[in-house]
Structures are given as C-alpha cells and as structure tokens.
C-alpha cells in the first residue's frame, strides 16, 4: 500500500494532519483584516505575497471551540484545486509517512458536525493523528454551480 506524506500540526492540544501536497507553506501570523458579514469561522483576510487569502479558524468551522490568536500562532496555507486559504494552527510539528492501510475511519463517538471534514484517523507514535479532508473543508457550497457554467 502506498505511503502518504503528511504534515503534522497541533491545534488546541490535538494532532491533525494534512497531505503534504496540499500544504503550500507555513507562515507566521500576519495582520488579519476582518471581513464584515463573513461566516463566523472566517477570521478575515490577509495579504500573502500579493495574494489575498481568507483566514479560517478550523475549531469554529468544526464547531468545537475557537482558536486564540496569539503571537506564536501559525498559519498553514492549504489548497484544494484552485482555492487557497490560511488555516489557523498552533504549530507545525513534523512531516511523517503514513501507511495508507493504517488509516481508519473516524470513530462514531468523535462524530458531530466535523466528522465529514475528516478523512480518518491514523496512529502516529503515541498520538492519534486526525487527517483533514481539505477538499471538503475548502469547498464552498456553491463551487459546483460555478464550475458547471465554466464547462
């Protein structure tokens, strides 16, 4: 079974992972401009080398809390197709290889709103690594409608 390279980062005491090819970079905290009337989990927008990116608080997106934004906060720039956003994280820790077979479905108990945004969980050393499904997280609901028009 193919091995997958995963970037491991911590957020709110938990360990999350995202495929290396979907993580563009890890950045230091920048000035975030609040966007009125945006969804609550969008903390605002920032300037990343001339591009304007939305900054997303995963905890709020998953409805399991709210990230504190402090000096040490990092931003993981992730992408899915042509959508790029900055995810608020505590820190990026490691790049690991995970055996595709060792990924298990998200346990029922962990369910809730955010279960659908997760690809599964995998054992990594002593930790339980929660794998994010970035394609779903970065998919605004109306993307399909726009695409249809462009076909």
């Amino acid at each position, binding site marked *: 079974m193919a091995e997958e390279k995963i970037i491991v980062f911590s957020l709110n005491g938990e360990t999350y992972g995202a495929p290396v090819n979907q993580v563009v970079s890890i950045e230091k905290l920048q*000035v975030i401009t609040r966007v009125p009337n945006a969804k609550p989990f*969008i903390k605002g927008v920032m300037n990343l080398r001339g591009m*304007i990116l939305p900054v997303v608080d995963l905890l709020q997106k998953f409805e399991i809390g709210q990230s504190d934004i402090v000096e040490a906060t990092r931003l993981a720039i992730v992408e899915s197709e042509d959508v790029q956003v900055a995810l608020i994280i505590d820190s990026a820790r490691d790049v690991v290889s995970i055996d595709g077979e060792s990924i298990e479905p998200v346990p029922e108990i962990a369910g809730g709103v955010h279960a659908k945004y997760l690809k599964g969980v995998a054992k990594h050393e002593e930790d339980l690594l929660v794998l994010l499904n970035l394609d779903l997280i970065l998919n*605004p609901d109306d993307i399909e*409608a*726009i695409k249809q*028009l462009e076909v």
Partner: protein
Amino acid sequence: MDTNQYLDLFLDESREHLQNMNQGLLELEKSHGNLEIINEIFRSAHTLKGMAGSMGFQNMTELTHQLENILDALRNGELTISTGIIDALFAAADHLEEMVDLITDGNGDNVAIHDIMRQLKNAAGLKQDPVGQTLNESTTNGEAENFVATVMQQAKEQGFNVWQVEVVVRKDCMLKAARAYMVVEIVEQMGEIIQTVPATEALENGEYDTSFTLILITHDDEAAVREKILKVSEIDNVVVNEPETNTKEDSKPNNGSPVAEENKQTQTPSTKNKGKASQTHKTIRVSTQRLDELMNLFEELVIDKGRLEEISRTLKHQELEETVEMISRTSGRLQDIILNLRMEPVEQVFNRFPKMVRSVSRELGKKIELEMVGVDTELDRNVIDEIGDPLVHLIRNSMDHGIETPEVRLGKEKSEVGRITLRAFHRGNHVFIEIEDDGAGINRQKITNKAIEKGLLSEEEAMRLPDNEVYHLMFHSGFSTADKISDISGRGVGLDVVKNKIESLGGSVSVDSEEGKGSLFTIQLPLTLSIISTMLVNVHQETYALPLSSIVETALIEEKDLFKTQGQEMLEYRGRVIPFKRLQDVLSVPGQSIQHNKFIPAIIAQSGKAMTAFAVDQFIGQQEIVIKSLGRYLGNVQPVSGATILGNGQVALILDCASMI
C-alpha cells in the same frame, strides 16, 4: 510545410471571416439577394479558402470552394436565393466553424464534409463546377497572397530574409518527386517555407512541370540559399529573388487568360482588402496573456507608488515629494493607456447572437427578431471573454419562456413576431447590458407558488414581497418554473449559474417585468476590472476603500442637523432629506462608538437616484487602488466587493456603496 507559427494568425483571421460570413448570410436572408452582400460573403469564403489552402487544410479548402461556387452562381444570377440555399450556406458556415474549433484544439480540420457538400450541391442544383479550376488558381495567387503577405511582412519586421526561390530541374530528370522532396528538406533546414507553388503535396508527388517556386523565410542570404539547393542532383538552375507581393496582376505573369478574367471579377474585393491591409499594418496582434502580464506588473507599480506616496508624506522632503508627484502623474497616464488596450467592443460577443436567435427560433417554432443596440460599447477584454455564456443563457431564456408562439401572440393582439432587444451602454463606471423581450412577462404567482413549494418562502411572505424581490427568486439555485422542460432552458441550472458567473466578474444582475408585456434583464458590469480611484476612510481601527464613482462629496456633518424618523437617522442635505448611516453600524465594527466633537466626517454616496450619508471616523485620502478578488471561498459578503493591498502591506476592503444605500 511547417506552418505552426502562423497558425494563430490563421485562426484569428478565419474567425473574423467566418463572422463576416455569418453576418452577411443573416443580412442576405433579410434582403433577399442583395448583390453587394453576396460579394461580401464571397470575399470571405474566398479568403478562407486561400488561407486554408496555404495552411494545408484540405477539407476546409474543399468546402469553401463549394461555397464559392454557389455564391458565384448567385451573384451571376444563375441561381436565385431560396430558404434551402440559405440553410445550406449557414450549415456550411457551421461546419467551417467546427473545423476552426478543431484546428484550435490541434485536431486538424477532420470534419466530415460529405453530407454538407451534397447539401450544398443539391441546394444549388449544380451539376458541375462552374468556376472550378480558374478559382483554384487565383487562390494561390490572390487572397492567399494577402495571408502570405502578412506573414512575410511580419518576418521582415523581425529581421528575417524572405526569398522567392524558383527551382528548375533538368528536363530529363527521372526522380522529380524525390528531387522536390530533397529541395524542400534542405530549404526547411534553412528556415521556414510559407508557400509553395504548386502545393507541397503535389510537389512531393512530382506533379510539376520542370520548375517550382518556394517562398522561404530564413536568416541565410541569397547566395547561400542558392548554393545549398544546387547540391541536390538533377537541378538545372535556382533563381532566388525577393518575392513580389504588391498586386495580383504582376504577381504571376504566366497566368492564362481565364485567371486574368477571374482577377477582374474580384477586383473590387482586392482593392478593398488592400485598404484594410494598410490599416492593419498599423496594428499588431498581442496575446491577451501578455496584456495580463503587463497589467499585473502595472498593478505592482501602483501598489509601490502608494507606498512611495506614504513615505514621501511622512518624510516631507520637497524634492522627493516632487518626484513622487511626477511618478503619480505618469503612472496615471500609463494606466489610462493600459486600460484602454484591454477594451474591446461588446460587438465581439453580440455578433454570434443573431445566428443563434435565428436557429433557436426555428427550433421553437417562434418568430423572433433580435435588435442589438450599442454594439460599440467597450468592455474589458476579460469580461468580454466571460460574459458570452451568461448572455446566451439569458437570451435563450427569453426566447424559450418569454416570447410566445405566433398563435398565442396573435390571440393577444400582439405582432406575430416577437422582439428581443439586446442593449449595451455606459453609465458612470459601469457598463450595462440589457435583454428585453416583449413576451409574456413573468408570472408572479407562478414564482411564489414554486418558492412556497420549495420552502423558500412562507405564504405570508409571498404576499408581502415586492415584485422585484419575487423575480429575484428566479436566480435561486434549482429554481425553474418552466412547465415543460425543454432542450434550451428549464433545467433549473440556468439563472442561478448566470448570477454566479456575473457576480464573479464583479457585476450584478436584476430583472423587471410586466405580465403580458415582457421582461427586462439588466446586467451591470464594472468598466475595468483592476484599478479604481477610491476614498480611503478609517472606521475605528479598520480601513475601507469607497469607489469615487459612487461618492458625491465628503462633508462634515453637525450633530444638530440630524433627526430621526422611524428609528433611522436622517440628514437634510442640499434641500433633500437623506438617510444618515454610521459605517460602524453598517459594518458591525467592534468597539465603542467614537464621540465626535461637533463635526462628523461623512461620505455622501449615490446609487441611481438614491443618496445616503455614511459617517466615518476619519478620511485618509484619495487613492488609486488595485482591486484584488476575495476569491470564491468567502462567498457573498456584501457590502464588500473586493479588497486591495495598501502601502503598508495590509489588506483593506472595498465597499460597494450601492448595496449599503
């Protein structure tokens, strides 16, 4: 022959000629055989044939040739215009378009032409080729020359030599095909062959007398070219000349008399084309990609300029200030030029609609006339590229759901022929495109019923909602009220997609209607996509940009001039009473409201006839900003229409005044 380099030019020009042809055909149908129009179409077909021939597209050449035959018979009065012929001509044009599309995708002109050829022949009732050979000859000689001439011109401008090479083989040459092949091979190593007489294929089959001619683009000089070709055995002589490109008459003196006659026939077109050609020499084709790059670079410059202005303000160094002032002025002029470069008339998009309306109205069994107004209105090239599909959708929508069948129309004492008006015009910093029909209009009841059924509205809401908001429900996804699903629209993926697309271009779409009289769809688009003049303001810690285009003036308002009606603060402003809104509330900016001492800075904004005063904390000043998209992820975050990067690297949001008024 390797013609890839000229493919873009070929495709561009083919499209232009096809467009002319389609337009001509539409007019021809209306005017029933106006000779002038037939000539016009003939010219386009002829040029297409020439270009296709020199590019080696066999099917295209054959089809255009057949087209010419019919057109020629028409203008000579051997044939009279009939619906059958017009249909066949349109069908042929469709096939040609298909070929051009295929060629664009790199798939050659592999479109089956057998059926269409028969349709053309049948329509014309032609048994044989009346113009046949003669035209063929004059093609290599005539219009193709225009195309080849353009290529030669370009090559010369780029510092290449262009040689016309006449190769004479020995009379007793045994391997004519092989010799020609070897010559072509050698010549191709030196540069690029843009034309051969006869065609390369014929050459390599040995189908020439004792000499053949090549036109070659190369860096080599005459002597070198000659020498290299002479290395091939059985070659008697090689004559290298500058090619003659000026006029048809002297371009090939050994033409027989039938060709000369043909030349006379096409005299008017050729002079006209020449007129055109001399114009085109003053213009060049630039790929949009390069324009985009230029734009991007310029945007960077504008951002840096902003930074520079900020620095100069803080430093207060006189010389610096003067220089910055100069830079600002130059970049302003530069901006005008660059933006203008990107503007194109909407005609380019509109052009395809008459034909579409014609064919769709037949499909639907309706009689529909399309009127187009303001086709020379200019829009940013990027918008032009994107706006086509939404417009197709809206027009089809009007044809399908708007315009009634002739019987119904007669029953309603309307003219049998339905009318759709496509209108484009400028207003302020926007371009408007309207699609108006005199059809059945929108049935309010039908929409509210559907909305209630879908759970979008309660029955009570449905009663209260003003008409325009009811109509706007049609843009909701999955919303289609067509009674029967037709091929054209009514699948429910229509209007919501149109709306999304237009909004992604920074525009908006609205609809108005009167039942029984018709409906009007209005699309509002930004004039330019990238740079606008704005007023920067502070609201607490936040900075916002308001487009100058919607600002009437800035003012200092005295608290005592404000009064409240129905909970809304109002202001008496130049004899009018207008709403007074605090941006802090509108944008729900966190934090305590600032206590102003006596005067409140405010921006008086206007949208249409409505005006509103927006209170801010501080005016920062006027600034040119580069509009950056917020991307699709954020979704609709009205009143924010975009963002920009300020001199300090931070992001400021651009507000759409219209949506706040």
